[in-house]
């Protein structure tokens, strides 16, 4: 698999137009202090008529720079084959020997990311400084960030997939994605518990002597996952062996009948990595309600009828309850934000070596939530963009902070209308859910503000 699909991200709201980045680039690339020679240009955002873009509010800026596109137009239009995307680094490189100076690339690029160097008239572009961009280092406000579009794609392919091919998940289910990525990252020195639910339902523990997992794996009871893992981990620790004790559990087992053992293990600080895949119900057995099922949702045990329309209670905020246990690490994640998930997974693995680490991953259920299979990631993303799901992490030292704050959340109705399970909602019910989203946002924000004030 290829490596390092990196780019430089620009957050206009943080940019004050100081031009330090341009000076750093010109120095690094040309040995010059002439900022017109920099391979990035930070320019005031103006309308053609010369009016400020935002009507006189504080000045804002735009970035002209190579984005190292995945499907680069500059490469496509180059008649000489002088531009190419490096399969290892992802950087778009230019071969000066073969370049015919036609400047077609400057027309092809939508970001003004490749332009003639005023010193010699030949095109020049960002080469990402071998992975340590000088501009990012020079930026005093954090407006420029060096982001690998997905570190996961750089590294994951090199790790063994510890689930066998052919797990039998529903079409379009992304829980399998979470499982495979997570176990790859955790690695082979792992004892894996998958309590009854979708995960073993796919065949992770297996049927009749065949197994879908390459690490030691077992069915705990739905009720005792954390306790069994605690016994496994403590015994290995006693004999001086380092293993990761990991659970991949569903929300039902974790939030309902297995909550006592989860709570007990968390309180005792058992060294466990407990990953919950939250599809908001008992989906494996026919979509029954769990305490993580949201208000108003249809399930097979909260049907829509004349008297009641879906679940009549709000969901239990299980990850927030785990914060209440002061676990070594608690985080929420979403299948639509895999890099965020990966960052948290690494922290959770590290935390599980000295305490209880809890990861709560929202994973839409195409079968039970009633939406087309190809919409799974879009549904997951909309949940985050409406603040229906909030991405955050917590440690006892640093408190809680949002990892993907949504400045201007979309109305929750955008999320609800994407799924059949909410099709029946009345305006009052939608209003109730919107109010609960606001309430939850306020609670999380208050906790996060408390952490920031420390």
């Amino acid at each position, binding site marked *: 698999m290829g490596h390092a699909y990196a780019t430089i991200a620009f957050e206009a709201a943080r940019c004050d137009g100081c031009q330090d980045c341009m000076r750093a680039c010109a120095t690094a690339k040309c040995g010059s202090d002439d900022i017109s020679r920099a391979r990035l240009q930070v320019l005031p955002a103006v309308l053609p008529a010369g009016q400020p873009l935002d009507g006189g509010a504080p000045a804002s800026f735009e970035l002209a720079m190579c984005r190292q596109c995945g499907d680069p137009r500059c490469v496509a239009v180059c008649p000489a084959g002088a531009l190419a995307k490096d399969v290892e680094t992802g950087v778009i490189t230019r071969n000066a020997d073969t370049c015919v100076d036609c400047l077609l690339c400057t027309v092809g690029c939508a970001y003004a990311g490749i332009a003639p160097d005023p010193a010699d008239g030949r095109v020049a572009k960002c080469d990402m400084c071998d992975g340590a961009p000088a501009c990012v280092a020079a930026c005093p406000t954090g407006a420029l960030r060096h982001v690998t579009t997905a570190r996961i794609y750089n590294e994951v392919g090199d790790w063994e997939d510890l689930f066998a091919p052919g797990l039998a998940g529903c079409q379009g289910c992304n829980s399998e994605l979470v499982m495979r990525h997570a176990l790859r990252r955790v690695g082979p020195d*792992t004892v894996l518990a998958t309590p009854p639910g979708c995960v073993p339902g796919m065949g992770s523990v297996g*049927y*009749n*002597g065949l197994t879908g997992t390459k690490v*030691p*794996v077992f069915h705990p009871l739905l009720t005792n996952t954390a*306790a069994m893992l605690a*016994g496994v*981990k403590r015994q290995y620790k006693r004999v001086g062996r380092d293993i990761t004790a990991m659970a991949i559990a569903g929300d039902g087992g974790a939030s309902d009948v297995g909550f006592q*053992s989860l709570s007990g293990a968390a309180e005792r600080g058992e060294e466990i990595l407990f990953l919950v895949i939250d599809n908001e119900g008992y989906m494996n057995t026919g979509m029954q309600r769990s305490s993580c099922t949201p208000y108003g949702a249809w399930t097979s045990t909260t049907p829509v009828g004349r008297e009641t329309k879906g679940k009549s209670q709000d969901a239990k905020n299980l990850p927030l309850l785990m914060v209440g246990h002061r676990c070594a690490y608690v985080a929420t994640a979403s299948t639509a934000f895999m890099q965020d998930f990966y960052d948290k997974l690494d922290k959770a693995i590290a935390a599980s070596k000295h305490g209880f680490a809890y990861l709560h991953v929202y994973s839409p259920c195409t079968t039970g939530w009633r939406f087309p299979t190809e919409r799974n990631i879009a549904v997951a993303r909309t949940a985050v963009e409406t603040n229906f799901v909030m991405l955050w992490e917590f440690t006892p030292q640093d408190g809680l902070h949002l990892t993907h704050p949504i400045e201007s959340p979309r109305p929750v109705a955008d999320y609800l209308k994407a799924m059949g399970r909410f099709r029946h909602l009345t305006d009052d019910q939608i209003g109730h859910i919107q109010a609960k989203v606001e309430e939850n946002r306020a609670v999380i924000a208050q906790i996060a503000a408390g952490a920031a004030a420390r």
Partner: protein
Amino acid sequence: MTMAVREAGTAAATRPRHIVCEGNEAAALAVAMVRPDMLSVYPITPQSSLVEHLAKLCADGRMDAEIVDAEGEHSVLSVLQGAALAGGRTFTATCGPGLAFMFEPYWRTPGLRLPIVMALVTRDGITPQSVWGGHQDAMTVREAGWIQIYCETVQEVLDTTIMAFRIAEHRDVMLPVNVCLDGNYLSYGAARVTLPDQAGVDAFMGERNINWHAALDPLRPMAVDPLTGGSGGKGPAAFLRYRKGQCRSMQNALRVITEVHDEYAARFGRAFAPLVERYRMDDAEMALVTLGSMTGAAKDAVDEARAAGRRVGIVKIKTFSPFPVEALAQALAGVGAIGVVDRSVGFRWNCGPVFQELLGVLYRLGRPVPTASFIGGLAGADLTVEHFHAVIARTAALLGGDVPDGPIWVNEND
């Protein structure tokens, strides 16, 4: 475990030590001597002092074991399942409502073939609300697949607890064991006991290899307990194979329990009847069948009755699960009347559970024997010598054909 290791300690090397302690402490001391890896505990009356002793032994450094203070009995046993699958020697104790709460993992432990040892400090069932002794808890779970061994004295609690680990971990058994000691009467009853010496116990226990059959170990990855069964394909046959092996091992346990008791007696000089004890049964025309600590009072009563010329003896059941059908049939072969004293009730047959089980043994005898069910000692009620005199008198009436049509409630007129 190799014979070489076992032979390393000899009877001559044992240095007995005598102390006075209650049954709960005796069990804890026995556990310390077998050097467990993992203890998981949750306190419940009348078991609490047992786990308190375990905690103190660990805190004082007299026992090197992990001790997990779980948040309830359900997790207590679950922790031990995980530890055993990782190769640990494990122990816990519970009773009554704790056992009921533990039932889900309890029910599963024999199927996982984990040699977990658990003291069952027997307690009567609620409700009526009660915290006192009785066998209702143990009787309720007698089809769950655990080996259940009942003790009569504090000394027997200590020695049986040590032996229980050898029985559970034997390759022909690999099943969990309940050492049953009567709540209140044995848990809190203090008596002089003789401790075996540590070197002798080490030699008796031999090398440990707990999870040779099923392991959660990254060095030999396997899926533990995949789904099986169903209406067709390989599943049902696989399920049957597991179940049949479990039943076979339960029968093997009858032999292994006897062998381990013999070996223990040879090494430490204390012999207990492993399955069934015959007390003054030579020439007996009638027998009392007893279980647990009540047997002490029963023996005193029988001694007095014998002195008065009554040909009465006792058949005490030590191993209740697996049920020692053949041993009981032999022990009862010559009698003309049987009085079975239960410390719990059987709701379905309107008799005591031991009585109900014994009816199957009568079939083996090949002749009808007049038999009566006595129920007493519920919720901590004392079963005294006087009570047993009444039991003997009523059992003697069976010889004349006076067979009751329901249970006789021993403490009813206390």
